[in-house]
């Protein structure tokens, strides 16, 4: 095992034993980036000098006996949708070029306090709108398990950076599956926390009522270590929740040691038409593993699953149309040089700055909020959203289910270009993940197996609100046993 594919818990141990320095660790990743990045295109940019300076500062803290904890000196790759002071923030869009953020997102400030090294700008679908990372205005990130396939999206760069050992951890954002889908396609762990668990301050808004920042790692344990630093109430985000933040890492270890048993719900709707047979077989095998370990498996029903996609696309586009109004060329970012008056300043800047998928969603959202359509679309969608949440809460409260288990996506990664002309089929990749966002629940995707053509398959576990500790504990039972995320793609 080399440094770049060593789990974070081990790296943390090596750092604290002074077997390695943070600078050495950072250099190992930079070396790995130089070897791998040209093949996968995960980074939009990274600042070597800054990363090494942060690593050096960490080593100095350690030398002075003032280390900040288990993440001190560990690099964390950042999706290009989260603000880091003095670093570019483009959301993979031309409209923000050449914007540099003057402030840190709360999660970045938290990582810095914990000694972590926020590093690099990871590629994504423009403004997090997409499921394949093909909608970046700059480059298409490749799936390291098959370079002709997409890595999933929108946090494709974040998943690939971790899957290829270019970064031990990374941050993504998840509005309808944008962490879990690429985690599933790239054979890594990705957690979408409960809505309100992690501050959104500094996360460029796509759909405010659904967006959450979450961690990527190679193991559930690694993810728990980073998540501990991210979670918590933030006075800069009114929608962040004041629930206590447990030590997730300690909690999953304690749970494993206690051998406590869980009740897992299997929704029949997630195994219906459209599910790839290889994916089905892999997921059923994982469920069987849990059963053999002595956990209870019950069949449940989530009857509103089939209408989640239209509901989701109404809410998401409505909020996006308003959230993206600020990119107008007036105060920052791209301004069209071709505008003759104020109206053209808006229309040309936005026409030239936004990509096709972003425009599609802004137009859809503007339409559903328009006078006369609001009640029929937006208001109705909000009502159905409540029904979708009720489905989950029924399973949790009436059936006493600890977590819901199923596939993250109906298929493994698809080919680059395969679905770009067919938005609806692209939207269907998120059918199992978007319900979780609509219900505001925590969800995690963990490596579950591979198809015959060696494409990764992800297992999704959905937890009760603010019960990430239990969710991570359940996921850890499978992950710690199989350690699939440590498997390395051949590049």
């Amino acid at each position, binding site marked *: 095992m080399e440094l770049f594919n060593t789990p974070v818990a081990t790296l943390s141990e090596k750092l604290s034993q002074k077997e390695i320095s943070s600078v050495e660790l950072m250099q190992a990743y930079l070396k790995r980036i130089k070897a791998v990045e040209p093949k996968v295109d995960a980074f939009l940019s990274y600042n070597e000098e800054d990363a090494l300076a942060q690593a050096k500062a960490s080593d100095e803290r350690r030398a002075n006996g003032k280390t900040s904890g288990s993440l001190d000196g560990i690099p964390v790759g950042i999706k290009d949708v989260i*603000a880091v002071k003095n670093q570019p923030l483009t*959301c993979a869009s031309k409209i923000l070029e050449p914007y540099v*953020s003057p402030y840190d*997102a709360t999660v970045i400030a938290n990582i810095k306090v914990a000694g972590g090294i926020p590093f690099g700008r990871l590629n994504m679908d423009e403004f997090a709108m997409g499921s394949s990372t093909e909608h970046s205005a700059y480059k298409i990130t490749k799936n390291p398990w098959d370079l002709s396939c997409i890595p999933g999206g929108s946090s494709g760069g974040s998943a690939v950076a971790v899957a290829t050992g270019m970064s031990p951890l990374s941050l993504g954002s998840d509005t309808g599956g944008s962490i879990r889908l690429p985690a599933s396609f790239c054979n890594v762990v990705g957690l979408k926390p409960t809505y309100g668990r992690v501050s*959104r301050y500094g996360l460029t808004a796509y759909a*405010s009522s659904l967006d959450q920042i979450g961690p990527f790692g190679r193991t559930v344990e690694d993810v728990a270590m980073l998540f501990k630093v991210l979670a918590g109430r933030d006075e800069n985000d009114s929608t962040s929740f004041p629930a206590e933040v447990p030590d997730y890492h300690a909690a999953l270890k304690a749970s494993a040691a206690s051998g406590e048993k869980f009740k897992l719900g299997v929704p029949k709707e997630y195994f219906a038409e459209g599910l790839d047979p290889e994916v089905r077989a892999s997921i059923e095998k994982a469920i069987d593993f849990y059963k053999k370990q002595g956990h209870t498996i019950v069949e449940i029903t989530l009857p509103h699953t089939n209408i989640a996609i239209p509901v989701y696309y109404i809410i998401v586009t409505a909020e996006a149309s*308003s959230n993206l109004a600020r990119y107008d060329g007036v*105060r920052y970012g791209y301004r069209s040089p071709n505008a003759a008056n104020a109206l053209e300043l808006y229309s040309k800047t936005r026409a030239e700055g936004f990509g096709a998928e972003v425009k599609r969603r802004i137009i859809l959202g503007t339409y559903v909020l328009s006078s006369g359509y609001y009640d029929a679309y937006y208001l109705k969608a909000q009502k159905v959203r409540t029904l979708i949440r009720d489905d989950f809460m029924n399973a949790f409260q009436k059936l006493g289910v600890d977590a819901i288990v199923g596939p993250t996506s109906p298929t493994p990664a698809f080919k680059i270009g395969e679905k770009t002309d067919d938005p609806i089929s692209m939207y269907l990749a998120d059918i199992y993940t978007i319900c979780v966002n609509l219900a505001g629940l925590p969800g995690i995707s963990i490596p579950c197996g591979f198809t015959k053509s060696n494409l990764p398959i992800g297992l999704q576990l959905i937890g009760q609100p603010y019960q990430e500790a239990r969710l991570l504990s359940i996921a850890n039972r499978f992950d710690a046993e199989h350690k699939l995320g440590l498997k390395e793609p051949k590049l």
Partner: protein
Amino acid sequence: MPNYEAVIGLEVHVELKTNSKMFTRVANHYGEAENTLTNPVVLALPGALPVMNREAIEKSVKVGLMFGCQIAELCKWDRKNYFYPDLPKNYQISQYDKPLCLGGLVEIELPGSSRNIQGEHKKIKLTRIHLEEDVGKSTHIDIESLLDFNRAGVPLIEIVSEPDMHTPEEAFAYLTALRTHLLYAGISDCDMEKGQLRCDANISVRPIGQTTLGTKVELKNLNSISGVKNGIEYEIKRQVQAIERGEKIPQETRRWDAFKCATYSMRSKEQAHDYRYFPDPDLMPVRIPDEVKKRLGSQLPELPWQKQERYQQSLGLPYTQTAVLVPDHELCAYFEKAVAAYPKNAKAIGNFVANDLLRERSSGAREGMMPLAELKVTPGQIAELVKIIDAGGVSSQNAKAVFTEMFATGHSPAEIIDEKGFKVSSDAGAIEKIVREAIEKNPEAVAQFKGGKAGAINVVKGYVMKQSKGSASPAVIDELLRKILG
């Protein structure tokens, strides 16, 4: 015109006086260097989020309580979407279907038949009051536009009246009453020149007797007190003339041009914005518990019309004095301090504060009135002066001169009376000499007095006062005259 009636409703925007902006901790100040009161939230940088300002909510609830509005138990925030360069997010956080305050009444005072006569009081119905954020300021120079975001995000309430007024005078009285109330409760400085209070009017006209409303025209840019009156007056006239010419009034938004003294069409109904309101997902709804309402209600000061009534009923002040005092709550506080120091003669104190003080404050070289904060004369000194007058320690003529000196120097009245030799003398011997001289020098007046014309004696008294430079005690003079003339 006599055959027509105007129907007027006002939408008044008021900037709240708070420490920080509506949704972020940046200072809320006027007059700072351009674009210094900004941060990621104000400038709508990617990732910035709003956080509600409690002080702004509380101040708005106070406004609602002052006007007897129903305070919402739960109010929420909505986004009003439109593109404009001075609006950084290109949406304004406002309240759409669940405003903070519903209903309510604003009591107004119409002008009386003369300045000395109190006019009728009338109650104007309110529709709603909601809280939102202000926008930045654009300045257009040639083909360039400059933006200043210092004002962007300042807490702003919109007070919407029912179409419950019928004349420009009523609208003016309504705006005055609103302003006075808001100043009393420390809600806003309400300076129209600084844009802290802005007014739009909805105006329609109809033949008298018709119950349905005419087509409404929204009039914007009434950005001074006189603008409100003149703009509305003009617009009513314009609509009546158009109807009399047989034209139909189109529903539209017009702009008052204070220089040209006319209104101009800005946009028609067809060009009206679709604001695509929807609940702001970044903010949680606000619950306002009864205890909070109670606490805020208990912090409200005595309100203008309550004060007017108390001054008239309990303190015996005439309308002319209350008309000066009541609109100015700081002057009232000044007056009340003086009354507290000498409660026996509020009326005399009122006279000094409402008349003499006002005159002196306006008499300086500078434009406008000297601010209260710069006065040298204190309420205690005014109380002291009235007390000396009442005790016969200075004549009322000299008291005026003493006051002028007090205003100029800040010296105490006793000091000035001493210095100027205004002290009333009760030395009967010295006064008798002057009285006898006065009788000698004014034989005609004395004869008339003896002949039954009581008023003629004032000539003699006046002579005595003049010779004694006002220092002779009027009581002693009276007694001596009675003795000598029988």
